[in-house]
């Protein structure tokens, strides 16, 4: 375990705990407006730790709620991409041959496309709701996962325990999901850590443009968007959610990089 792994892991745990507990201990709610206290600076007195926004809502609670939503969307979307990517990659790698070639050619084709625009297209065409956002964001991040899993499966397929299972008459589907998939665990965890920041990026991008999470619900991207409109008079409304978002992304990226190095080193031994 390197130091940056511990630091980043620690920060992320702290942010998650704070996001979950913060709204519970604050006397304010994320909806409650107060027109006597518009755009107040951060203060301890009224327990407006991060100040208030342009409707007098407590920014601390809203930022914590936004962090909750952002992390929830990212984790669920990453699980969606994990399921698609592992299933797709494992099947391509295990079946091999022409099927593999066609399946991976399809992945290459999709790779070249600016996928996020398709998500926006989906958001325009359908009613926006949480489920659609989960699925749409998950559906664009599975390509890396599919490639990695396929590569691993190709080498696992030749191992003795798989051959033994085949000789014992285990069905291909069962071999893929019971014998090969569990052995992908380590590498999959690493790539999930790298997928989460990408999902956060997509979600906050959409919310920033007003195409993602809708009011009165909020996310860090939506809060940054709101902050941009207030930044000349009240810079903290922008800086606080922007800093938190940047911190979360930076930590996930560092953690993912460190984990990847960590696992690679062990593979080489």
């Amino acid at each position, binding site marked *: 375990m390197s130091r940056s792994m511990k630091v980043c892991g620690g920060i992320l745990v702290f942010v998650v705990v704070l996001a979950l507990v913060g709204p519970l201990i604050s006397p304010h709610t994320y909806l409650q407006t107060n027109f006597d206290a518009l755009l107040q600076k951060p203060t301890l007195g009224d327990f407006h730790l991060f100040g208030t926004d342009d409707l007098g809502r407590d920014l601390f609670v809203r930022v914590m709620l936004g962090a909750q939503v952002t992390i929830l969307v990212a984790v669920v979307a990453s699980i969606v991409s994990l399921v698609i990517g592992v299933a797709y990659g494992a099947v391509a790698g295990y079946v091999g041959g022409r099927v593999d070639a066609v399946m991976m050619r399809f992945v290459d084709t999709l790779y070249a*496309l600016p996928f996020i*625009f398709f998500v926006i297209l989906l958001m*325009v*065409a359908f009613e926006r709701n949480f489920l659609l956002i989960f699925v749409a964001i998950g559906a664009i991040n599975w390509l890396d996962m599919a490639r990695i899993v396929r590569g691993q499966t190709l080498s696992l397929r030749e191992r003795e325990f798989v051959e033994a299972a085949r000789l014992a008459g285990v069905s291909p589907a069962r071999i893929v999901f019971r014998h090969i998939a569990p052995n992908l665990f380590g590498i999959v965890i690493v790539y999930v850590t790298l997928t989460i920041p990408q999902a956060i990026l997509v979600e906050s991008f959409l919310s*920033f443009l007003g*195409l993602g999470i809708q009011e009165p619900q909020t996310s860090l991207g939506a809060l940054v968007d709101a902050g941009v409109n207030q930044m000349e008079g009240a810079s903290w409304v*922008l800086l606080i959610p*922007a800093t938190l978002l940047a911190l979360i992304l930076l930590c996930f990226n560092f953690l993912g990089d460190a984990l990847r190095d960590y696992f690679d080193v062990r593979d080489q031994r």
Partner: protein
Amino acid sequence: MGAIPTLLLVIVLAFLMVHAAPGGPFDDERVLPPETQAALEAAYNLDEPLHQQLFNYLSGVVRGDLGPSYRYRDYTVSELIGSAFPVSLKLGAMAMLVALIVGVLAGTVAALRRNTALDKFVMAFAMTGISIPVFVIAPILVLLLAVKLQWLPAGWSGNEGTGRLVLPVIALALPQVAYIARLMRASMVDVLSSDFIRTARAQGLGTTAIIRYHALKPAMLPVLSYMGPAVAAILTGSVVVEEIFGIPGLGQFFVRGALNRDYTLVLGIVIFYAALVVLFNLVVDLLYGIIDPRIRRR
């Protein structure tokens, strides 16, 4: 390369996505009388069967006709794209140029000074640049350089001259600088440790000459293949940057269209973006063959 089938797939997928959606473009705010509804749908050929509409649309795309815009009633989608794209192109091309020059330089310097404080600084900066999204970098740059220090204009309209381009280009280029610097450092470290560089060094060639005549070209190859994704990333980034700085480019039309549910405009721009990315990937593939003759023999 399968550029044409890829594009065809994109158009069909995007078209079906829009048309499979529940509800049409004309039934949001108030309920129209059924005759008006029918007349509107007939005017936009929405009363025909889906496969016929798809066929019409495809044959239109081939002729460069992306249909009428639903919201900007007097314009066709192609006209809107034609008027807005030059602004975005200028912005994107400058950002790409800056990203290439700064990224390649920074990566090369980091590789030459490997494991020094300078290298660590460049790499930490690159990691930060990759992690922080454009829509966080851009407002903070504006806050710092335009609002607080007042060195540069924050907005587009009312500010003629090149000054108004500086902040948008920096915001757009920064994440790509970071990516290219990382790629460049990794491949330059690889190339510098190969045998032909050792030979060149043994012959007494200086570092500058080695980099310029021997190492730069092979080390650039990974950067070159990143150009395709970079174009996609700059297109995505330009949507945000144009929104923040109020630049009347294609990205702003795209966001407005998406918020107004202007189906044909959004569909047209998605197809246009996809075509750009596919085209650029094709150009990169061709360039690859020119720079690295080993590829051509396959």
